[in-house]
């Protein structure tokens, strides 16, 4: 059961654990909007060390405004970047 719905604003958690992750550093701590729910997939933190990926997590595509990611972004305010992020990395943005 996915916690967030498309269109909902989310915050990427700003944590920096060691190990294998698929949450790029450049989007941590940033706010975006859920574009779609991709399904349920195993956790890279577990797969990276021979684990079974469980419990599987909902995976989202989150759309960010480039200007929120890079304060000095050189381009129109409408430019965006979409990133796949697992639910255990997301908080509601309110």
């Amino acid at each position, binding site marked *: 059961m996915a916690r967030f719905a498309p269109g909902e604003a989310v915050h990427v958690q700003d944590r920096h654990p060691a190990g294998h992750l*698929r*949450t*790029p550093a*450049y989007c941590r701590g940033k706010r975006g909007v859920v574009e779609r729910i*991709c*399904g349920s*997939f195993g956790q*890279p933190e577990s797969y990276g060390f021979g684990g079974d990926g469980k419990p599987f997590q909902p*995976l989202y*595509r989150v*759309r960010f405004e*480039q200007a929120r*990611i*890079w304060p000095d972004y*050189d*381009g*129109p305010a*409408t*430019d*965006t*970047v*979409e*990133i*796949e*992020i*697992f639910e255990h990395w997301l908080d509601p943005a309110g």
Partner: protein
Amino acid sequence: MADEREHEHDHDHEHGHDHEHGPRAFQPDLEDTVPHSDYQYLEAAVRELLIEKGLLTADEVRAAIEAMDARGPHLGAKVVARAWADPAYRQRLLADGSAACRELGVDMGPTHLVVVENTPAVHNMLVCTLCSCYPRFLLGIPPLWYKSREYRSRTVREPRAVLAEFGTVLPEGVEVRVHDSTADMRYLVLPMRPPGSEGLDEAALADLVTRDSMIGVSLPQSPKQAAAE
């Protein structure tokens, strides 16, 4: 499960060539000069064990490599051309990329494909900042630049500068939307059908579709450009 996730065991090293090089014509085989890495030893050891234990045959390994090498942008081009020609197919492709590709007989393996559509308002472009995820079942082995640190870091940071270096300048007011392929999805850009392509059949449409236009760093060829080739 065999998947495409960050398993980049390409053999992209350049092979020796044997044409004349003036007075010093000897060209050593690169295999003699480049040390084998631990991973290459590991791969060989595991492969030989699997064969020795009868779990795989050497011919199955060879055939898998042959199938991998046979994939290429012609597969993606076929999908794009069908989407241009058939609006109902285009809808299915945008709704479930992998299922729509399988409809055309493309082996998608375990790929979860998301097709992103270029429109007059939005231009899509693909990158994998964390490694080099790529829609291999549709486009084959990625170009070297796609895996370069420069492309991977700059595409999310300054996509318009990267596009300009590829010769792609978009009209004012077009949103650039970068897709960072970070986890389990793979992406394909569905480019806009070029003007002047009305009346072309699917095979002729497929000839307009380039690899780079499906990565989103370029646009498809016009019928005139394709005819000039």
